[in-house]
């Protein structure tokens, strides 16, 4: 399994070609909630004042997503995607800041960040929540460091994200232990389905 990366930390990451040239910086990450993965990145220019680029980086053109750079094969990977502007507003806005509900109808918190798998998968693995008191007890600081694995039956409607109720039993505030938890979650989900 590849390392988990918080999507908010991807902003300002350089986009580097295999030839070693930095061609842009990541501005925002656009999700494809149905597929449960990153759809594309919106970009800014390389310098401080260059502003947003009118070009996008679709996930299919990403060679590898690392901790220090988004690698692309060459500059041709960036393409003008007029659709993505509409998509960014429609999709990205729904994940960061969206209300999280279980399929039992309990409101458990709001999405602060999204954890994705790096490398070539770009799979959406988990959410960092600002959890409500019903889910996690403790201080506000502690409740803002809560991770919930992405359920297989993820659905998005408007500003609300619905996760399976049993996913909330895998809540953890410890990111290093989280990878193991996600593995346990998937094992259990597999058995329950069969």
């Amino acid at each position, binding site marked *: 399994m590849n390392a988990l990366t918080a999507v908010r930390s991807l902003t300002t990451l350089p986009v*580097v070609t295999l*030839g*070693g*040239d*930095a061609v842009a910086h990541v501005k925002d990450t656009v999700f494809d909630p149905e597929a449960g993965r990153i759809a594309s990145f919106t970009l800014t220019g390389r310098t401080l004042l260059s502003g947003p680029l009118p070009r996008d980086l679709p996930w299919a053109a990403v*060679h*590898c997503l690392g901790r*220090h750079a988004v*690698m692309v094969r060459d500059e041709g990977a960036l393409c003008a995607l007029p659709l993505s502007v509409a998509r960014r507003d429609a999709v990205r806005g729904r994940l960061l800041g969206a209300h999280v509900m279980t399929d039992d109808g309990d409101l458990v918190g709001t999405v602060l960040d999204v954890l994705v798998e790096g490398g*070539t998968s770009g799979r959406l693995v988990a959410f960092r929540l600002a959890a409500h008191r019903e889910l996690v007890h403790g201080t506000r600081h502690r409740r803002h460091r809560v991770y919930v694995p992405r359920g297989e039956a993820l659905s998005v409607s408007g500003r609300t994200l619905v996760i399976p109720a049993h996913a909330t039993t895998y809540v953890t505030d410890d990111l290093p232990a989280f990878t193991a938890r996600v593995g346990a979650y998937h094992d259990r989900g597999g058995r329950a389905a069969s």
Partner: protein
Amino acid sequence: MMLFSRVRGLPVLTLGDADRVGVVRALTVDAGSGEVTHVRIRRGRMRKEAVVAWDALGAVGPDLLIARPAGDPSGVPPHHDLVGSRVLTECGEERGTVLDAAFDPATARIEAVLTTRGELPAGRLLGLGDHALVIRTGHGHPG
């Protein structure tokens, strides 16, 4: 075998009259083919630096380089310093910075690159650009 750090600062003389052109400032590298392609020569404080193709050098000694009368400098690739550049794997992970590189002066082939995180065989180099030297990850990785 020769080191980039040893070549830097060597005087460059012309072949005919042993006139001093300047001193070596840097070597331009084609990371894809793993070869030294050009020598950049500092000629003096107010003068533009000269670029000589590695093939156009008459002789490469441990203490000086001898250049044939230079042709036109057209078709010179953009220069990026190998020494001091950041090392990035093709998976986007940083692997230190380049400290030095060893090459064979006869064939101009780079033999190894020494980084702050250890030595890299020349076969792993993919490209050198303005941001980083990109290297292949170890075997077993896609791409």
